């Protein structure tokens, strides 16, 4: 029985997708190692996280996603519940986003992302009223709740990811474009109003610094300026692994987490970056291919959701690194150093593969056709 299961999985496993993940993880190991030095504990931890991620991946693949979806509400509630006590912890870098267990730190918002997707998939997959404007309230509410809790931490970056993911999932599910535009528009207006009221000083400064870096050289714009110089100095082929000057001399802050891309750019140059972009694109394409193949509506939404999250997070990270966006504090999935991020990314990919493996029967025409 076991062999049959394994061989059945093996035949239908999307190896190409996994290969893309492997390449990204390799980038991560190489450059975290370069950024932090082989003797520091971080490289070892990164490999440990990848190992844990693989375990999580196997777990996420093994359990039939339909069972997960059955408990989606419970899981979602548990996720929301976990976002409350974290607000009582001691702030790290001005944000209360972590549970510090001593030997490791857990960031609940990383996992809530996935639980939210499950909830959305289940909700949208079982009814159709989101095709009407009024029907958009419930998914919106589902989304606003975790976003608000995460914004309070405050973790603007992670909260931000929910927004495009929300739109992507609804769009893929078939909501009308006009409705989505309306929601989006009013959201922008609301954000403009709240900007002054609710934004933290440092968040405002980040945006100001992004708009006019020359004024903030040594302080808020320092990070992005150093990143830009590091990236630019990589040229076509880079300075060589482990030889990036700005990397080695520690002049780029958070170079192993948020700005790992600048290390890659400095040391492997344009060629190395292009490689990364291509692999990322291929990964997203593979995931969307899984979504296309899947006819079961909730499964599809799960895949689209996970892809949206990973994709947007990567995009934001890259855009910040090259200076197209102000600093946000988002990591590059699979590449950046970070346990919770790595684990949740692997779990997410696990869900995608999970859906891809199982072709649950669905009746009737494609429910997503409009």
């Amino acid at each position, binding site marked *: 029985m076991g062999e049959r299961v394994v061989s059945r999985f093996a035949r239908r496993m999307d190896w190409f997708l996994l290969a893309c993940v492997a390449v990204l993880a390799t980038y991560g190991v190489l450059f975290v190692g370069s950024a932090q030095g082989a003797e520091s504990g971080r490289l070892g931890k990164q490999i440990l996280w990848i190992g844990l991620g693989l375990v999580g991946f196997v777990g996420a693949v093994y359990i039939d996603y339909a069972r997960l979806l059955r408990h989606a509400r419970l899981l979602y509630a548990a996720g929301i519940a976990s976002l409350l006590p974290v607000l009582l912890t001691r702030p790290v870098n001005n944000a209360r986003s972590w549970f510090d267990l001593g030997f490791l730190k857990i960031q609940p918002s990383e996992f809530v992302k996935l639980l939210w997707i499950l909830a959305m998939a289940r909700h949208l997959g079982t009814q159709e009223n989101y095709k009407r404007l009024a029907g958009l309230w419930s998914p919106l509410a589902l989304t606003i709740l975790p976003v608000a809790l995460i914004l309070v931490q405050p973790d603007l970056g992670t909260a931000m990811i929910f927004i495009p993911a929300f739109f992507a999932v609804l769009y893929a599910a078939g909501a009308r474009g006009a409705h989505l535009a309306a929601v989006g528009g009013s959201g922008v207006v609301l954000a403009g109003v709240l900007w002054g009221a609710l934004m933290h000083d440092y968040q405002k400064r980040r945006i100001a610094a992004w708009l006019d870096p020359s004024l903030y050289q*040594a302080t808020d714009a320092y990070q992005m300026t150093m990143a830009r110089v590091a*990236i630019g100095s990589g040229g076509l082929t880079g300075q060589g692994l482990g030889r990036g000057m*700005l990397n080695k001399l520690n002049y780029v802050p958070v170079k192993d987490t948020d700005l790992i891309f600048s290390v890659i750019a400095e040391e492997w140059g344009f060629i190395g970056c292009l490689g990364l*972009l291509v692999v990322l694109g291929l990964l997203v394409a593979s995931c969307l291919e899984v979504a296309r193949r899947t006819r079961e509506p909730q499964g599809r939404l799960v895949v689209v959701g996970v892809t949206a999250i990973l994709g947007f997070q990567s995009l934001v990270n890259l855009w910040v690194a*090259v200076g197209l966006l102000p600093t946000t504090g988002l990591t590059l999935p699979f590449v950046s150093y970070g346990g919770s991020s790595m684990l949740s990314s692997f779990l997410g990919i696990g869900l995608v593969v999970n859906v891809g493996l199982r072709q649950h029967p669905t009746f009737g025409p494609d429910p997503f056709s409009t």
Partner: protein
Amino acid sequence: MYPRRVRVLAGLFVAALAAVAVQLVRLQLVHGGFYAELAREGRVWDELESAPRGRILDARGRLLACDEPAYGLGIVAREFPLGLVRPSDVRELASLPAEERSRARAALSERLEAEAAVAALATLSGCDRGELARGVLAALEKASRYGSERAAEPAIFGIDHEAWLRLEVLLSPPGRRGTGAAGSAIPGVRCIFRARRSYPFGSAACHVLGHLGEYEPAELELLRRFGLLPDADLARASGLREALRGAWPALARELGWPGADDELSTERVVSLLSMDEETRRRLASSSGPAWPQIESFLERGALARLAEGELVWVNSRGHLEDRRIGRMGVERSWNERLRGRHGYRVVIRNVTVEDGRPVPELDYLRAEHPSAGGDVELGLDLAFQRAVETILASAGRRGAAVFLNPATGSILALASIPGFDPNAFGPSPRGDVAGLLADPEKPLLNRATQGLYPPGSVFKVLVAAAALEEGAIAPDERIECSGGYEVDGRIFRCLAEGGHGPLDAAGALAQSCNVFFYQAAERLGARAIARWSRKFGLAARTGVDLPGEAAGSVPTEEDADHLSRRTLVQLGIGQGPISVTPLQVAGLFACLATGVLHEPRAARPAGSDAPLGSIERSPQGPEARGRGRSETRRVLRVNRLSDATRRVLLAGLVGTVHDPKGTAHAAFASPPAPGERSFAGEFPEIKVAGKTGTAERPGGPPHSWFAGFAPAEDPEVAFAVVIEGGGSGGRVAAPAAARMLAAYFRLARRAAAE
């Protein structure tokens, strides 16, 4: 519809990725060169914050060596206005061959003298224009070599403090001091200061203190190989190989490395430096005559510690900043403690892009504070030390004197003449270092620890002790001295023309009868002499905490069997194949005084509770040589002599001074100079135990020795004095020692009265 929507999403994603790619093209390909340049220029450098070096104090807390600020000027190559001289002229200097370079340099610095900026600076600072021009050129050269055109490279020191303070105000960049100065009077000049080692008492205790200096090319080469100095242009590795050249084959063979011309790789050198005692001993015995040369290289034990990166500060550009390391004396052997730990600041010039040019602005990224070096306390008293040095200098031109505390081994005075002024050394030397190095009188040689002399009659004490203990001679046995002794057809003379007549051991010591000791030596045999020499620490390093100690030699027990009779009897009176250092001789007498042979100590950490010489037993012998110097005393050996032997020796040694027939009697009984009192007159109650020595040597007058301890019953001090080529021991060294002892007891009395 769904597939289309997915395609739309996919398309958006690709577009977003493309935006990243476009930006990358802009940053990396279009402006890549610019950013690379920016990365280099915007690079930070580490500014060294030197740790203040620890001080060296004497036993009473007087300051013998300390840091004082030296005020000077630095030049920022980028900003300094040059009219007649071009930056390319300076750069070209580096590519010239050595002979032309000094000429070109001189020519260039003459042109610099004519520069307006240099002239103005000279006037403002009060420096000599030529010296300033040379300094400016050196700074410019260094900047071009190391790429530090934006840093202030030192040009000249020694500016008067008042002038320096005035300059600081004049030269500060606009707006920085809030004075609203319209502009810096001369751009590109900075007021800098750094620590300079000062020895307030000049040449007093110079050999004990030592001096500072920079790394030698061979050491730098090793550092470079360890990757600490990636860009530095240094002397060839052959500098190191030169040092080992003659000894290399033996070394390679002993260590089992293939081929005599095998490459002196980094790993090989490290293994050389971290060799353990056992290997070192094997190496010594197999290298034979090459050993001293190998040993002097291995002496650079400080290098091993440096190579591990612990003690050396090198900035991110690979520039070795640490120029003040001890090269001699306590400055060297206690360098680790004295040096402290340097701190540094990482300074960044921001990378603002304005009109495509970077605009400089400073920010400090990281800083580590320096931790000051620890002070070191010497065992010697400055007043006594100076007295000893003065007296020694008046007794001869070259020589040494050592005074030890026999209870602990701590050094009360250690003088070697001629001496030198340590203030002459350092990164900006104030004296004539080259002259010191070339001086044939060798002022840098520490004759107390490095001078090897035949002991002459002083050795008779050891022979007597050995003979009595071994039973070769009975305590009251008398031997007839008729003035000569025949050995294998040759007659060896005694001091007294007609002979001393029958003498016992004590008398033979007091009157320094050669014949007695010729016979004693024959009866003892060479093996016993060799063995007893070692027991009392002769012909072996004492392990004192002063670098470069010589070991001396005495026939080994294997060689002893092959000695001719003639050589044997000569050994009995301390001539022949035997050489010792004054420190060893002082140690010998200290051991005779107390029965314990200590490891001599010059210094200890200041403020430590252990008195300079708390005794700690170490029955196996000297501590293995290795990292750091222990602060507690080491007992090297315990040599308890029988009461009978002690009585005889004491009688002989005291008789030398107090018996009218003793060879040192006149020295202590008569005034050393008109108007001064004799020792016996001033300190009638103090009995001095001593032995004179007149050590013959080929090619010059004999060395004059006097060594002993005092007071005889309850010794406070053990000493050895030697004057090179001084002649008779009783006539030159003994009177000098008498005056030194007088000085000691005078000071001791005064201290007791306080």
